[in-house]
């Protein structure tokens, strides 16, 4: 076994290179250029949120990481090997948002069948218990609720004890308790060295559960960092004030002004250091009726990902 434990962190780093490595990946479907040159490296044990609006290329990228699609250009590797090889060894598993279940078999049979295909597996009962569906193990899949089916997909993903777990909108249909249990299970496995990449379009979920957020828009990575860093990048404040004769050049000369809009006597300024800008406006420009508003999380996300000109596609 080629494993070693890093001292000083609670994460385990396994041999075998980066959990995910994408180099210059492009993928098109006809005229749609879904992925436009994504470079991404995810280290083992990281919990990474893949955040973006519908149509950002998240799903296409995930398909390539899972070996379900091939890039037109560039390379994709998981745990130092071709995605299909990693899947064949049970090193990579995924929880998809929809489908992937046979309606006419029971919950337990589904996991048992899945387990039978892998060499290295965990106990079926343990997986059912961890996913919280041991109690409904004899129920037909077709009779399960959306949340129960999602837990079943999770149990199926756990059974091969994957080193990389890819989740596509994982908590869709789950109630609050289900969501909490789910993320608790994910967290405890990350400490064993499991890497988790989850796609979501909720900044809240990404911010709450991921070590790192990779923000994609129109098939490109537009931001990559911790939740705090992402928010900081997008979370400028807006200052509005009234000036008698606003002087564009003088206003732009104020340190910290990042955006400026003048409508008659009304001035709107975008800035990170809003206090300094406000002080300058009040002290040297004779500004009146000054107000400062902060952007929320969702607005920050919108700032980074929105683009009114192009239609969204899943």
């Amino acid at each position, binding site marked *: 076994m080629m494993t070693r434990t890093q001292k000083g962190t609670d994460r385990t780093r396994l041999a075998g290179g980066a959990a995910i490595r994408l180099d210059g990946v492009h993928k098109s479907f006809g005229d749609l250029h879904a992925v436009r040159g994504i470079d991404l490296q995810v280290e083992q044990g990281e919990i990474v949120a893949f955040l973006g609006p519908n149509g950002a290329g998240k799903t296409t990228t995930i398909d390539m990481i899972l070996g379900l699609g091939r890039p037109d250009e560039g390379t994709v590797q998981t745990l130092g090997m071709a995605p299909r090889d990693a899947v064949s060894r049970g090193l990579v598993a995924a929880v998809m948002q929809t489908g992937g279940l046979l309606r006419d078999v029971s919950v337990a049979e589904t996991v048992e069948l899945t387990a039978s295909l892998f060499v290295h597996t*965990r106990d079926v009962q343990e997986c059912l218990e961890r996913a919280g569906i041991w109690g409904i193990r004899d129920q037909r899949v077709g009779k399960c609720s959306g949340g129960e089916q999602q837990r079943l997909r999770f149990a199926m993903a756990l059974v091969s004890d994957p080193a990389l777990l890819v989740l596509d909108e994982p908590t869709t249909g789950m109630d609050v308790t289900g969501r909490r249990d789910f993320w608790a299970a994910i967290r405890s496995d990350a400490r064993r060295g499991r890497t988790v990449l989850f796609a979501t379009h909720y900044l809240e979920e990404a911010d709450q559960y991921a070590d790192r957020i990779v923000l994609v828009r129109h098939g490109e990575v537009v931001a990559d960092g911790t939740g705090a860093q992402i928010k900081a990048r997008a979370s400028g404040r807006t200052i509005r004030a009234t000036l008698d004769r606003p002087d564009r050049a003088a206003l732009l000369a104020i340190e910290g002004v990042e955006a400026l809009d003048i409508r008659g006597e009304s001035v709107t300024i975008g800035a990170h250091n809003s206090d300094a800008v406000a002080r300058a406006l009040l002290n040297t420009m004779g500004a009146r009726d000054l107000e400062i508003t902060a952007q929320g999380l969702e607005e920050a996300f919108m700032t980074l990902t929105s683009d009114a000109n192009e239609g969204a596609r899943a």
Partner: protein
Amino acid sequence: MSTTTPGSAAGTISLDRSTPAYGGFNRTLLRIELMRILRNKRTMFFTVVLPVIFFFVFRANSFNSGSGNASAWLMVSLALYGAFVANASTSAGVAVERAQGWSRQLRLTPLRGPAYILTKVLVSSAVAVIPLVVVYGLGLAFGSRAPAGDLVLAFVVSWLGSMLMALFGLAVGFLLPSENTMQVMGMAMTLLAFGGGVFIPQPVFSHAFDLFARWTPMYGVTAMAHAGLAGWSGAWMWVLNIVGWAAVLGGSAVWLFRRDTGRV
């Protein structure tokens, strides 16, 4: 079979993994797949009832049928047809699995195309035993007479040979949307059965039709199933027909399974 690594829950996740033997083919998969079919009342109904109805409708009395009587000939034909249909309709069920996203899910496991195809063929051929047993039982009870050796040969050839239609069902099931699969299969089975000489015996074929029919996928198996009664003349052609179609249909099924990773 599952192997649990004891005590690894707290330990690190192992990267030292191997791929399964035989492309993931295993008994658990086979058992669960078989149970799924046996639980499907509709499939079981048609598999059993259809050949019974056909047997009583088509009970013939006289034509030259070689070493057995006409009833024996018909028994072999109808049992074979039942086996063809059982194989094809069972395996074409993959169309429904595709619609549920299951084949895509299987692409996230080590299961290889040939192992999956083999599982489906074995399950289908297990189901095909039912019409064979039912029709041979009825035939013998209602006056079909032929040398025992010829009947055993016909039974075994029909059972093994009808697996060809399991491959056909898989190829169609992987190719067409599930709502169309069953109509196409019903139509195809009837036409292929005529071409193969299942309903109208091959010796009755015109020369021109026979030249065409020998290229159709039921021809070789049907001829060989009747060989005990009607003789082995032309056997090399039957073998060629069977081997050729097995390669074409099996190859198509594996290729279509591999291709089938689309989202639902």
